């Protein structure tokens, strides 16, 4: 089953770390990506640029509106994602727990919609 692992992170948490700690977390990210590449569960994954680079598009009856900033303003923002293919939700949750940002922020795990189910 395919899942999105959506990484929510507060940049303040990263800013508070020492150089050594930051390097350790980056190493953990690299190691995690390697592991799921080897297991064949990795489909895609990228960090995103910060929320100040975000733009929101809405289309309402009056027309299209474009606004600066993320969709929701919170301390934690969507920082990146992994798209994985794994056996069940339990496996997806195990993978999410290995993502370094799980220790500070949170990872939302959502299955991909299957048009056969809808």
């Amino acid at each position, binding site marked *: *089953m395919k*899942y999105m692992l959506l990484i929510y992170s507060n940049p303040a948490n990263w800013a508070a770390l020492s150089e050594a700690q930051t390097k350790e977390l980056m190493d953990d990210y690299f190691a995690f990506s390697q592991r799921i590449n080897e297991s064949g569960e990795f489909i895609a994954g990228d960090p995103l640029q910060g929320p100040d680079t975000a733009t929101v598009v809405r289309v309402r009856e009056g027309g299209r509106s474009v606004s600066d900033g993320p969709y929701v303003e919170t301390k934690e923002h969507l920082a990146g994602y992994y798209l994985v293919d794994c*056996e*069940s*939700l*339990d496996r*997806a*949750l195990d993978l999410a727990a290995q993502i370094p940002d799980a220790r500070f922020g949170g990872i939302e*795990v*959502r*299955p991909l919609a*299957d048009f*056969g*189910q809808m």
Partner: protein
Amino acid sequence: MSGVIAGEEVFRTESGRVLGALMRRYGDLDLAEDAFQDACLAALETWPRDGVPDSPGAWLTTVAANRALDRVRREARRLPKEVQALGLRADGVGAAVSPAADEELDLDGEPSVLQDDQLRLLFLCCHPALAEEAQVALTLRTVGGLTTPEIARAFLVPEPTMAQRLVRAKRKIALAGIPFRMPEPDELPERTAAVLHVVYLVFNEGYSATVSDTLVRTDLCDEALRLAALLAVLRPNDAEVAGLQALLVLHDARRRGRVTPDGRLVPLAEQDRTTWDGARIAYGVRLVEEALRTGPVGPYQLEAAIAAVHAEAATYDDTDWAQIVALYGLLEQATPGPLVRLNRAVAVSMRDGPAAGLVELDRLVAAGELPTHHRLPAARAHLLAELGRTEEAMAEYDRALALDASQPEQAYLREQRAALMPSRTPP
């Protein structure tokens, strides 16, 4: 006709086993429930005529399995080949099915296999990905075999609301791919704790019901006891499972002393201990002693041990308060929290006198704990009254009454406050 009535009880007790077996085969809770329901209807037709079979569980499982297979085949004929090739099940829902799905459905049931299925079903219903109230509803529906209207009544919720809750829970299981499997050894403690928590919630819901509530609410206690006993059979070497069972048995054994016939709550200090079920208390005490011997020690065992010390005391004053204080101290290490500290403070007041207890309670107040909980000012009021500080005691009872308490609790607090009136010194 008694055969039919006995049969209906059988539907409830066999629910978990049959659904567990079908889940192992098909991994679809909706399919399993529909098939089981069909089997029960078939039983209601044929059993009055042919008699209740020797093994009603096996009969129901056979019929349900046939119904499920029929439906799966019918759906499969309808679906295009590509969908089938993707390995989706006939109804198109991609729920994760355990590898055992290809095995023959073991209808005569090696007991251990049937038990494993029931355990898997319990773990499925209590998966942390489901909301707590969904876990409770699903457990009662599938393993408890309660009907949706029964569960709705038990939790004082409209039936359509409860029905929706169950639909959403099953939908999430299917769509999010919550698997039907035994948790890995390293997941077991957390997952078992989730199941124990659900059983405890069910018991607590029933236990809080007063005499004026419907019988279904009191039946919740019985249902929780049954689930706890089932869990003890399925997980025999788990000390916390045994601990929970002991705790529920010890609470249940003293149930009749808690409430007067007209629905008044009787505090522990005033309960008529002759109404307590001595044999059941002895059973509960044996359970907790055994659990503590098995270890490792956990919160349910400690709560059960505290209940055991209370249950074995001839009177409130005779209670081994020193042991209770010590046990609350251990409980605080296992599950720290203000309510545990409150209970410990009350025990300290019994062991060392009201002034010592008040010191502990004042620490809670100073830390800003439990600001909206009536039990803190109520406990302070009680101790202040014992120390002759009547005006302060009455003020604390007022504070307690202003907070959230049930009707019987409020009535009790008002009574206690009124009893202080004669001791007021004139201004």
